[in-house]
């Protein structure tokens, strides 16, 4: 009777060992005991695999987190952009439009309509913003200072708006997203009569016509 119980106990111990064993490990069915060297090797193997697993898990977490950060950043930008939008309805001019401080004005030299290097940077930023929000359509307004004659200034304003538009297009913005309009000298932002005021008025200003 005792011998039978002992056999069953040993059997159960062996079973227990097998069941409790690591799934990755090859189950050594017929050798319930290992040598010291082999045990060390197995341990080292285990440690290596653990380290690799941890590394992979860390990378996955970092990737997720970066993706999350990017997603957060995009959402934050979206929020910032939405927040920056001011709706405007001008009496006597059709349509409700939006303005955003994130779409910055560019300026021009007297009687000129070329984009200067410092203004090219601003237009690049504007283009980046437009790329992030591909549904947004804009209208670029060309303006002149109060000097010069009304009708010739309409032509100059048209060129200024056109220059800014051309630059955006060269950065990959689709032409159907950008329209232009010249206001000549009819819309001064600064009513002053000195170069400080005039330089503020010689501008291309971007408004949002649909989002």
């Amino acid at each position, binding site marked *: 009777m005792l011998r039978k119980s002992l056999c069953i106990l040993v059997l159960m111990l062996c079973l227990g060992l097998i069941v409790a064993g690591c799934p990755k490990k090859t189950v050594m069915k017929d050798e319930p005991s290992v040598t010291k060297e082999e045990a060390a090797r197995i341990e080292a193997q285990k440690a290596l695999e653990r380290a690799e697993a941890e590394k992979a898990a860390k990378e996955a977490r970092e990737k997720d987190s970066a993706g999350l950060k990017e997603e957060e950043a995009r959402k934050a930008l979206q929020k910032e952009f939405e927040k920056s939008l001011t709706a405007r309805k*001008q*009496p*006597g*001019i*059709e*349509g409700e439009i939006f303005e955003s401080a994130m779409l910055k004005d560019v300026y021009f030299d007297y*009687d000129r309509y070329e984009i200067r290097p410092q203004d090219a940077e601003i237009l690049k930023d504007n283009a980046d913003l437009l790329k992030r929000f591909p549904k947004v359509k804009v*209208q670029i307004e060309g303006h002149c200072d109060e000097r*010069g*004659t*009304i*009708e*010739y200034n*309409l*032509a*100059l304003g*048209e*060129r200024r708006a*056109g220059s800014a538009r051309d630059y955006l297009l060269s950065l990959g913005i689709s032409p159907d997203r950008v*329209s*232009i*309009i*010249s*206001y000549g000298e*009819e*819309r001064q932002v600064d009513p002053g009569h000195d170069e400080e005021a005039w330089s503020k008025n010689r501008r291309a200003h971007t408004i949002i016509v649909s989002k």
Partner: protein
Amino acid sequence: MLKTPILLILCVSVFLVPAAEARVYLDIDSPAFVQIPIVLPKWKSLEKTPPALGAKIYEIVSNDLSLSGFFKVIDDQNLPPPLHEREGIPRTLFLQEWGPSGGELLLAGEVQLDPGGAYLKLRFHLFDLVEQKHLAGKQYEGALQALRGMVHRMSDEVVYQITGERGVHTTRLAYAVAQDEGKELFIADFDGANAKQITRNRSINLSPAWSPDNKKIAFTSYLRRNPDLYLVDRDGENFRLFSSHAGLNAAPSWSPDGKSIALMMGMEGKSDIYLLDADGNGPRRLTRGHGNEASPTWSPDGKRIAFVSDRSGTPQIYIMSASGSDVRRLTYDGNYNTNPSWSPKGKRIAFCGRAGGRFEIFTIDLDGSGLQRLTSGSGDNESPCWSPDGRYIAFSSNRAGVSKIFTMNANGFNQRPLTRSKGSESSPSWSRRFE
């Protein structure tokens, strides 16, 4: 002669004047001319006509004669006694008693309001005090409401007798007035009276241009968030869209036959001069090249167009045929010449040129010679526009602070503001005579 259905005016020549003998007293094309002193005794109100009516006529005709630039008016207040109390028409026999007045001409008249108070008869006589003879006389009849027009016709007749060409006192000017964030269009008589607003859309309305038949105004408006071309009748009615191509539809100029409009259009990404038919056909492109083209104006024979181009580097005046060929440059002085306006007499072009940092009005012969500066040292003077007889120029000037419409004789003489209103005015356009 244009018909004006509202007015019932019968011009009756009471005393005949052989027109061939009309002495031309003034050389109005000379750079400076002497004004003829003309005596204006009080206007007589006959029978039961209120004296105020005679006084009103007096005020209008006195102002017209002075406005014409040809006369120095000696009014009743500047006459020595007993002349200052005289009223109405003197007898030719006694013209010598007007010697002490200092006048060379005398214009006198009377008015009779009919008993119903709605119609009147206006009569005048013009005398040469130097030769002591009668020059002309006429009678006008019409509704009381048409009084100003009648008096202006009378002034035109006086100008005709003295210069050989009728005056332009029946004409009107259209112009833009700044309002809030935009500009609205107005029309006023040449003497500044009857200023009427003809657009009421709160938008930016620019560059009014009278049609040659005096019936409508073409202009640019930003109503649809684009500078589009519109038409409106001179009474402000029947406002309609005429051209709305993407980009500019600006600075309209009617051909003298009223069949085409030259304008600035930006369809190719920059401003060029195009032609549109008055019935809507077109547009046809006239200018080519890399420059910015602006402000077309037609020659009176309809064969050529003067315009602004900066193809040489700076804006200058050019002339081309009405089909866009034979382009030649007109202005070489200065580096900013814009706003050309072709005289209805055909021989000179007025324009705005920058000189000494300010904008001044100049005129120049068609061959580029005879450059004459008409304004100087008084603010910025822009947008010149000739009267239909080619003897006056309207323009805008901010010499007194705010920009106002001014008129002057074509030699620069007699510059005066059109209205006394406070608003900022720009871009005058001169109608033809309302006869």
